[in-house]
């Protein structure tokens, strides 16, 4: 049941990130709620669920992406992998600093990987070309804070729902 709810949330967040939020960019940056969600999901859910979710959403993003196929798949799986590596047993409460740090770390990897792909495609950079990267990190930091609050409530609700279902 919880698994299905999380799939639905991931699907809605994917469509929002690809088709809705791009029209409300802040300094040209679209919030990547899917990454924030996968990071939080890996904190709370054990087993393969976060990885399956990361693969499902990653493939979906790759289908519409200008980057080589597998780019988003790798980034999202990496997000889940890093959290699982640092917190193999998961956490009961979401620590803001750990959560924010991991999210921004993944966003930084995601942005640098895009620069890497562009470099391989023959684009050469100057210092000024890294300005969008800095701006992106700042805007993502803002969205991570907002999403952190929403996710705390979501996972609290999911936990209570799960315990209710178990009691039945």
């Amino acid at each position: 049941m919880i698994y299905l709810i999380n799939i639905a949330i991931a699907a809605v967040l994917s469509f929002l990130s690809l088709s809705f939020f791009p029209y409300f960019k802040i300094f040209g940056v679209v919030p990547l709620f899917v990454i924030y969600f996968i990071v939080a999901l890996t904190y709370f859910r054990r087993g393969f669920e976060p990885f399956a979710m990361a693969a499902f959403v990653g493939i979906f993003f790759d289908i519409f992406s200008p980057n080589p196929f597998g780019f988003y798949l790798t980034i999202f799986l990496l997000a889940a992998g890093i959290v699982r590596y640092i917190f193999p047993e998961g956490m009961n409460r979401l620590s803001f600093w750990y959560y924010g740090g991991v999210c921004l770390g993944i966003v930084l990897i995601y942005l640098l990987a895009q620069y890497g792909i562009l470099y391989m495609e023959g684009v050469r950079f100057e210092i000024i070309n890294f300005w969008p990267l800095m701006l992106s990190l700042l805007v993502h930091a803002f969205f991570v804070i907002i999403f952190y609050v929403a996710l705390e409530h979501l996972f609290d609700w999911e936990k209570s729902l799960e315990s209710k279902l178990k009691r039945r």
Partner: protein
Amino acid sequence: MPKKLSILLIVIIFASILIFANSRGFLSNAVGTTQSVSAPIALFFSQFSGRTSGFFSGVFRLGGLQRENAELKDSVNRLQAEVAQLAENKKENDSLRKLLGFAQSGGYSYEPAEVIVFDPSNIRGMITINKGSKEGLTNGMAVISDGFLVGRISETAEHTAKVQLIIDPTSAIPVTLQSANTNGIAKGEIGFGLSMEKIPQGEQIKEGDTVITSGLGGDIPKGLILGKVEKIEKLENSLFINALVRPFADMGNLFRVIVIKK
């Protein structure tokens, strides 16, 4: 083997298989089907976004709308006069072509499409539209919005197509200036800018010049407007001049586009 490592191994193998299968074209049908199936849902979100942003921009810009309306009415009157003049010129041009035995120019048709997906990165510029190879779209075709060039088709599926925007850092389009015969290449810049490069030193170029496609190479017709020259950068000891170009099309608010088919 520790559990952590086995999970990591499975993940890497799974991702590698998918990437390899796609590079060999084994997934093209699956990718096309997924795009077609998800297109209506993506279109719903995109249209919802359009209505929402339209509503908010209307509310916040209420004061400026009256002035803008008056300016637009003036523009319409002026453009109507220009259209009438151009129609006369076209008639004259056609009869002269006939007299000289030239082949008819043009031969383009137009396919309207709606934007269903934007790439969420602020580094790349790519959109997906809800028309594809079934509607006769092929790679390289020009895509316009509000009369201005916004990009060209880079990949087609049955019912969807990816459009590489002119602001994508890997985009390069042969262009010229409307006022002078100065050729160059319009290249996308990281951070959604556009620049005109490879302009030979000594060529005539000034700020405010309109940049149009030169029609050299590819399926992009000549004369499509991209933007205007905003700043000219003359580098010492360089054979070329660079110019920063401001695109006329609002790249962040593309809802409907038109594909020019040959």
